[in-house]
């Protein structure tokens, strides 16, 4: 079976530097890929290209076989994307916002209501359903962004720091949610919380200075007797020293 996410030699150059350099990987159904790296390593840029927001300088990205540049609408239909910082329209209510994204995705009438209600149930937003998003705390805002990504039950989920700003209980809930959904989906999450990788990911990619330095299961990374943090530090810091 073809992988749901296929990234081939993806490259993004900005004037003067290369943010993402020749990155290739695939994610199959049932995999949860943890995308790790120091700030500025190219995690968000890669995710933006995968989501079809940023055009790549070179290389291709496909979601369920649809190229994100040539068939953007088909690719985005199968994608749930949580952008960095979980942006939402602050003046809208939670239900209003979710219904908006649902309508764009083609849901109508009672199906739309069901989808919105289900997404709020998954992310525990029922208590604030009619509140304007700007009045919500950071954790709630993040979950509104997450609800929007889950609303249409997409086969591919790309989540940029899904647990950032959540308290420990909420983090636990979101990880549980990801674990429950994992068997049916291909999921990519970026994070710089290393214990999260061990908790939910079946595979980890460490990216530094735009390049993939490791692609392995978290358990394999820890086999050498070192903690994931030591592995991360030696790989990402080593690269910097090399360049200096």
């Amino acid at each position, binding site marked *: 079976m073809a992988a749901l996410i296929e990234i081939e030699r993806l490259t993004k150059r900005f004037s003067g530097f290369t943010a993402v350099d020749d990155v290739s990987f695939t994610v199959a159904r049932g995999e949860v890929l943890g995308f790790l790296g120091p700030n500025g390593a190219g995690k968000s840029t890669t995710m933006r290209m995968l989501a079809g927001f940023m055009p790549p300088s070179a290389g291709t990205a496909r979601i369920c076989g649809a190229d994100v540049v040539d068939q953007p609408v088909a690719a985005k239909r199968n994608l749930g994307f949580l952008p960095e910082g979980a942006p939402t329209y602050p003046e809208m209510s939670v239900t*209003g916002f979710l219904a908006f994204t649902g309508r764009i995705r083609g849901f109508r009438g009672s199906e739309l209501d069901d989808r919105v209600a289900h997404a709020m149930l998954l992310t525990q937003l029922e208590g604030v359903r009619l509140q304007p998003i700007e009045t919500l705390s950071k954790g709630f805002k993040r979950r509104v962004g997450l609800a929007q990504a889950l609303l249409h039950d997409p086969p591919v989920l790309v989540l940029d720091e899904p647990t950032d700003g959540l308290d420990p209980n909420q983090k636990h809930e979101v990880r549980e949610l990801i674990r429950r959904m994992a068997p049916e989906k291909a999921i990519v999450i970026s994070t710089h919380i290393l214990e999260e990788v061990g908790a939910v990911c079946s595979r980890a990619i460490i990216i530094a200075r735009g390049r993939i330095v490791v692609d392995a299961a978290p358990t394999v990374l820890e086999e050498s007797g070192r903690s994931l943090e030591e592995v991360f530090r030696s790989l990402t810091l080593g690269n910097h020293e090399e360049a200096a």
Partner: protein
Amino acid sequence: MAPALIVARRELSGYFATPVAYVFIVIFLVLAGALTFTLGNFFGRGQADLIPFFSFIPWLFLFLVPALTMRLWAEERRLGTIELLLTLPLPQWQAVLGKFLAAWAFCGIALALTFPLWITVNVLGTPDNGVILSGYVGCLMVAGAYLALGAAISAGTKNQVVAFVLAVALCFVFAAAGSPVVTEFLDTRIPQLAELARALSVADRFGGFTRGVISARDILFFASFIGFFLFVNAVVLDHRKAD
């Protein structure tokens, strides 16, 4: 419903959920009324028509419409929602069209709220309501032209002040292109350009509408003007969205 209309609906309710709508409408109505009755000499002319009102509209919109368009894409950028909107499964031009339609409908609402002027002339005399209707259609056309131009500029810059100033300046060029000062200057020096200036003048085209003449050529002018700048908007957005 087409995705553009879903976007437009969200945008329009966004205007009314923030002070933008109320400030814009109140200032527009106050200025339109004040200019009509003072500079426009509404009562002193002794004629039951809305010519004094219409004559100020292109100049009033010159400042107010860029105030609407400057935030169109800049606000999405500031909030980061541009990344959300453009990763939803809708063609990018539908997002561009949706935002434009919402702003246009909003201008339509502001124009409709000048209805007391229309009632006043009908109470005081017997105006030609067909001419008045055609004048309102002209106002909408001018608003649409400025909106499309301003929206395209807004897609190109993150900075709202830059977007506002550039939009005012460019709208002014199209508003003033047909004015005697410009055309007489060009007539004596570069006659070919004078023709072009007259042909591109938003204010000249608008003049026809206020006299009750809705010509196919003028409609075509405004339609292609709006279409062209919406196209520019989509192209610019595609190149600058991630900056």
